[in-house]
């Protein structure tokens, strides 16, 4: 009974998605650990890290899609939540360096010694304790989203106005984190990590483990998001997206609904950021750059907003393109491609890749497969 309900909840496309993720989660580690370099089945550690990075981006995209695709909140500041989660994790990793830093100070990270800090700033207290750091991964973006959303939604800031002030928010943080006296490492950010929970972050085993954890986190995120959007709550979100004032006249407190989804989405973004940092080995203020947040929006748009699978797929596709472009002679054309993608998606395929797929399938198979229906 429960399995049936689960299957119904996830729907066909979601099941394919979960199956692919499970496959990745099993095959990539095997390819990396069991096959020696040179073997055709070998997956290099670099590829593991790259895929892991894509997966955290996919999580960010799913989070953004919950807010934008389902509730119409186009946040141009989700990169900030991602970065805050990343910084929380980065702070834990910095504290784990201990005396192995260049200056060998037992408590203060290198950059603080360099900047003549005498003691650890209060913002850093407790970050050597892993559960506390993990709590902050959720709380820092969650609280920011709560305060910001509470103010914004209550005063009914909607549409582009909201987008613009979310962009201003991430821009303000961007400027702030560049400052040395914020105590977060200034423009160098946090890097040179050594251990996570006692395991060397550089070690192959740790990297593979992080990859598996990221796969699990993405699957978890997807299932949670799927449960949310198929509940009545999800239906109300869509109602708000399509006719906000009508929803209000039905007696729904639109601001509460938005706030819940916004905070939840920010927290998921924070977790994605926290998984991102140990894999790439650095977090710096450029993660707050407004362009990063907009780029995340285009992932969702490319994959198909309002479809969770689409958001994740979009993150994968666009980032694969980015890697492909920026590592070769095409590097200087990447921004042309990305810019063109923005224009193309909005003009030619407003429902993204998945929408296009549905349209094509609709055309060639029997007509009228319930057009306009929400896909998984």
């Amino acid at each position, binding site marked *: 009974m429960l399995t049936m309900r689960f299957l119904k909840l996830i729907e066909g496309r979601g099941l394919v998605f979960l199956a692919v993720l499970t496959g990745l989660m099993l095959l990539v580690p095997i390819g990396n650990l069991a096959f020696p370099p040179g073997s055709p089945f070998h997956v290099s550690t670099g590829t593991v890290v790259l895929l892991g990075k894509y997966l955290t981006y996919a999580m960010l995209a799913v989070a953004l899609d919950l807010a934008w695709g389902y509730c119409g909140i*186009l946040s141009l500041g989700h990169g900030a939540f991602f970065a805050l989660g990343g910084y929380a994790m980065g702070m834990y990793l910095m504290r784990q360096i201990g005396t192995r830093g260049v200056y060998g100070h037992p408590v203060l990270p290198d950059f603080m010694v360099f900047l003549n800090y005498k003691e650890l700033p209060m913002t850093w207290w407790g970050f050597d304790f892993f559960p506390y750091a993990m709590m902050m991964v959720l709380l820092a973006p969650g609280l920011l989203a709560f305060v*910001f959303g509470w*103010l*914004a939604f*209550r*005063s*009914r*800031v909607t*549409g*582009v*106005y909201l*987008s*613009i*002030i979310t*962009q*201003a*928010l991430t*821009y*303000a943080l961007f*400027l*702030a984190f*560049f*400052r040395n006296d914020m105590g977060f490492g200034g423009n160098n950010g946090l890097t040179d990590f050594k251990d996570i929970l006692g395991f060397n972050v550089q070690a192959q085993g740790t990297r593979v483990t992080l990859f598996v954890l990221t796969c699990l986190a993405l699957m978890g995120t997807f299932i949670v998001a799927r449960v949310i959007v198929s509940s009545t709550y999800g239906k109300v979100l869509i109602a708000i997206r399509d006719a906000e*004032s009508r929803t209000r006249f039905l007696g729904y407190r639109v601001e509460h609904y938005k706030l819940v989804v916004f905070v939840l989405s920010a927290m998921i973004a924070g977790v994605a950021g926290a998984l991102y940092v140990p894999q790439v080995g650095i977090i710096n203020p450029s993660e707050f750059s*407004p*362009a990063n947040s*907009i780029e995340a*929006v*285009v992932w969702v*748009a490319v994959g198909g907003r309002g479809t969770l699978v689409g958001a994740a797929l979009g993150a994968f596709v666009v980032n694969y393109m980015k890697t492909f472009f920026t590592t070769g002679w095409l590097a*200087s*054309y990447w*921004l*042309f491609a*990305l*810019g*063109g*993608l*923005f*224009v193309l*998606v*909005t*003009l030619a395929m*407003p429902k993204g890749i998945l929408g296009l797929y549905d349209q094509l399938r609709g055309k060639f198979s029997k007509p009228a497969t319930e057009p306009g229906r929400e896909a998984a």
Partner: protein
Amino acid sequence: MRILALLRGIGLALCLALVALPAAAQDARPLPDEIVTRFLADSFGDTEAAIGAVAASGAPQAADMLQALGDRRLFISASAKGLFYRDGAGKGFDARTGQPADVPADASAVRLNNRLRGVVQAALGTLTLLSPDPVQRLRAAESVFKSRDPAALPAIEQALARETNARIRNVFEEARAAIIIADTKAPEASRMAAASRIAETGDQDGLALLRQLSAQATGNLKSVIESSIQTIERRQQIRQAGQTVWFGISLGSVLLLAAIGLAITFGVMGVINMAHGEMVMIGAYVTFMTQEVFRARFPHLLDWSLPIAIPLAFIITGLVGVLIERGVIRFLYGRPLETLLATFGVSLILQQAVRSWFGPTNREVSAPSYMSGSFEFIGLQITYGRLWIVVFTLVVFFALLLLLKATPLGLQMRAVTQNRRMAASMGIRTRFVDAMTFGLGSGIAGIAGVALSQIDNVSPNLGQNYIIDSFMVVVFGGVGNLWGTLISAFTLGIANKLLEPFAGAVLGKIIILVLLILFIQKRPRGLFALKGRAVEQ
């Protein structure tokens, strides 16, 4: 263009007024033989008399001679019965005529004792105080102010009597007052008068002097000095405030300039154009290219490249704007979020196009002569560049206002944005008006780029620095309200500069952003919001 000529005229007149000097005798006049004889006598008494005579002679080489004397480079030659000196580079001159000449082999340096050294210095001071060059006179007076050497008093008095330039007179008077007030032997009444004189026009140096003296002074003098200190401090505070407001206005005009175009495309049309900053950037590059062409072809007209770049930038960015509108935006009317994304894509493409074309590095746009330099206005240092930008911004603003309110195109624009279908049925070509409106907004952004090329680095990233600020300005002012944009830009500019002394530039900016975010929460429609049913649509 006529204006420009007029401006140059004014500038020239200003320069002349500054340089106008008391016509001093420049003709070569040989020193009287008597002076040479006295030096040849080689006694300290005669030398002292000779020094006085040299200073009083008014000969053009007098200053060089005295300088040489002080440095033991003035020589007497018994064989040639003459007086010679070498300049700092070792070149020889005949002191009597001031013409180059070989210094004879038997020449020996004129001897000085410490007292005479003082006399030489004082004579030199007097000489420069009387110099025909106003810059030298000014510098001499300032050094007297600093040294407060009572020996220089007669020279100052003498110079003051001859001085006609008001600005230099002022410095002379201050210097005289400084000597008197610092002279403990001077009568108290005149010292008090001197303190008041310093209070009248004194600046930081005067303040330092008075503070130093107030510690030693007693009685009436002390109280006069203290009130003088307060006078100067108050004046400095006012000046500081004035300066802050000016900087704020200057920043505000930059914000306004960057935002005006957006006030059209976003405010009037409701189009979220994330490529707005790139329009500004293109305008700046048009300026750069115009200047390069002038530099290569018509170097003597280089100063004209900026005025000529204005219409060019307007036309080129306007065309780019029309292309964007026709190619992208028109498919997205009524879908603001999609417009936002598509135009962001356009902005990436434009940035990269400029980067591939011109390279990623900063390009240099030089300031024309009428925009460099600065002047003082009631104690405020105002650079011509900033002043022109403020004036230019206001001109653009009011021209735009006029265009919207008083021309058929403006009327049609407002008609289309208020009720598209109605306008269409009245025979207005709405698509054409859309394109023109967007082109206008973009063109104005391009004009902004011309001005901003003067104060910012011309690089592919130029636009990104302005886009968020511009949106904040428009939203804060109230969308669709040009006056709101004006007030908002200047408010934000001044607020930013007020915060800067306490918080620093970056933190100040962050604080402003946070305040703006909070403000928009409180009043989502900005300072001057339109009310009513139409807004909801």
